[in-house]
């Protein structure tokens, strides 16, 4: 097929490569420094999407594709957002009914292997 393909300077690949290591290191530090609660979750999500974005945009060449392809691939997963949101609500509801009607203990502490 007479196409030029995705040809780009190697520099940008190496840059993204390094960025992936750096961001991975950051998300590892979130755990290592034992951030808790909202801060932890927000940071995890931010770093996760940052890495995913780098991979899709550069390594998978999405940022150089035409919008026809970008929309064709990136819009359908919006259906999954609906699924995830509704399932989050549903799971909380199920958990609440279990606590309320079946005497489950919502404050149980995880059993740990090392103490």
């Amino acid at each position, binding site marked *: *097929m007479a196409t030029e393909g995705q040809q780009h300077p190697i520099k940008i690949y190496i840059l993204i490569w390094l960025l992936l290591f750096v961001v991975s290191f950051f998300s590892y530090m979130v755990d290592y420094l034992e951030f808790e609660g909202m801060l932890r979750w927000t940071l995890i999500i931010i770093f996760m999407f940052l890495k995913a974005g780098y991979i899709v945009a550069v390594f998978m060449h999405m940022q150089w594709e035409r919008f026809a392809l970008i929309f064709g691939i990136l819009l359908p997963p919006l259906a999954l957002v*609906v699924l995830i949101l509704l399932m989050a609500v*549903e799971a909380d509801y199920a958990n609440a009914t279990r606590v309320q009607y079946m005497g489950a203990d919502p404050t149980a502490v995880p059993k740990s292997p090392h103490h």
Partner: protein
Amino acid sequence: MATVEVPYQETVPLHHPKTWLGKYVFSQDHKVIAIQYGVTAMAVGLVALFLSELMRIQLAFPGAMPWFTADMYYQSITMHGMIMVIYLLTAFLLGAFGNFCIPLMCGARDMAFPFVNMLSYWVYLISVILLLLSYVVPGGPTGAGWTLYPPQTITAGTPGDDWGIAMMLISLAVFIAAFTMGGLNYITTILQARTRGMTLMRMPLTVWGIFIATFLGLIAFPALFVSAVMMLLDKFLGTSFFMPAIVSLGKSLDYSGGQPLLFQHLFWFFGHPEVYIVALPAFGVISDLISVHARKNIFGYRMMVWAIVAIGILSLVVWAHHMYVAGMHPYFGFFFATTTLIIAVPTALKVYNWLLTLWRANIRLTVPMLWALAFVLTFIVGGITGLFLGNVIIDIPLSDTYFVVAHFHMVMGVSPIFAIFGGIYHWYPKLSGRMLNDKIGLLHFYITFIGTYLIYFPMHYLGFIGTPRRYYETGVTEVTGFYPQSAHDLNVFITCVALFVGVSQLLFVYNLIVSLKKGKKAGDNPWGANSLEWRTPDTPPGHGNWGERLPTVHRWAYDFGVSHGDQDHIPQDVPKQKSN
């Protein structure tokens, strides 16, 4: 690419099989694969039809077949539902019509990946064989109902809770693999392998319906795949994804903490799009049949396309209207009832457009046209009862009654079957070069059409008086004495009609076989249609479909009722005159 005005397929050589086996068995030609899909789907559909007759006999004449136990009844229900929805309707509408129509209507030589396409059929065949093999494994096929809800599906007491469910789930996973292989082909072919001048907005609506349905399949079947994997693990590895702590037959099982509703959500996240995977190709086929046989351009082509797209999108956010009584989050009812009623808008739009196409048209009551008209009527009837069931308040008393059975058989059972029949009568001349016999066709049509209403209309009333579905016995025995005699009489009536209609389907099979040799020669374009499949140099189309050059498309497929020489239609590959 865009500047080079040559379709890619004109530049690459076509794969040419040398042997008989390569031409007719392991063929990579989309037309042969379409026939293989169609024949297999029809054969397995006849099995499902037979199962439904067994169930009808049991309901009307309890005790007439002493060997037909309650377990067998549930197994029949499950297999009937699963075969009809997945292995017949999905496989036929996408596997057979999709394979036959897409390359011909888009002006392609073949599918984009013929080898993968061939593989798709053989993997599909394996899934069918696996499904049927569940009749010979210990315990027989699963009797969990086609929705396979846990925990009952995999706990003792349900027929086939061991081997049967394993065969079913594995068969489904294999089917999904087959569908994915086919589906990737359909999408790639439609998007990337059209001929010169064939824009998306010039494609016949059949292709549009198949396109969106395939896309839905590719993003909905994963949910079924995931739930099948998780259920297999629950059953055979003892995980507790769907299984709460449970006492079965007085024994406490090792499960704890699972969420049965998760399965239902995943299943219906697949299951509702599945309804439209079946319906959208039917919509497309019917739109084309109506336009061709009414000799009038389809009313509101663009709106029809956008309606198909809108239905496809909306179908992904309505799934839990199957779960109003399941015990999910109480606020979900509002959300899903709203989205469900919104989806009625594009659907109604399509119905109006079909009616407006017929308005003052030059209607020819050919056999395909009769099926198309029957489809529209049946779809309206089934769709309207869908409005009842989409509302939480009305659904609650009606759920799990025969009203539901009547509704879904009308709207997604019989209607797509009508579209399939109509499509076969319409395209058989292109496929075989001969017409199907009209007399047998008419007989088959009237029996099936009238029979449908005699069977399913009374079921609405049975539902209103509260007849539960999936009951082995509702007859007036001492145990089930709550059931009024009049309702039972209705049941007997339904069964008698069902038996007659079921047997008369053999007329159709007979017609298909006999017309292959004895049918009237069809010629290239017996219906005077415009779309590209009627413009092939040979009938039936040869390998590669077109000659040296792919056709060039200059117009949409719906130029009917115009004067063009001595014809009343202008095919898609006729150039536009300068004056217009």
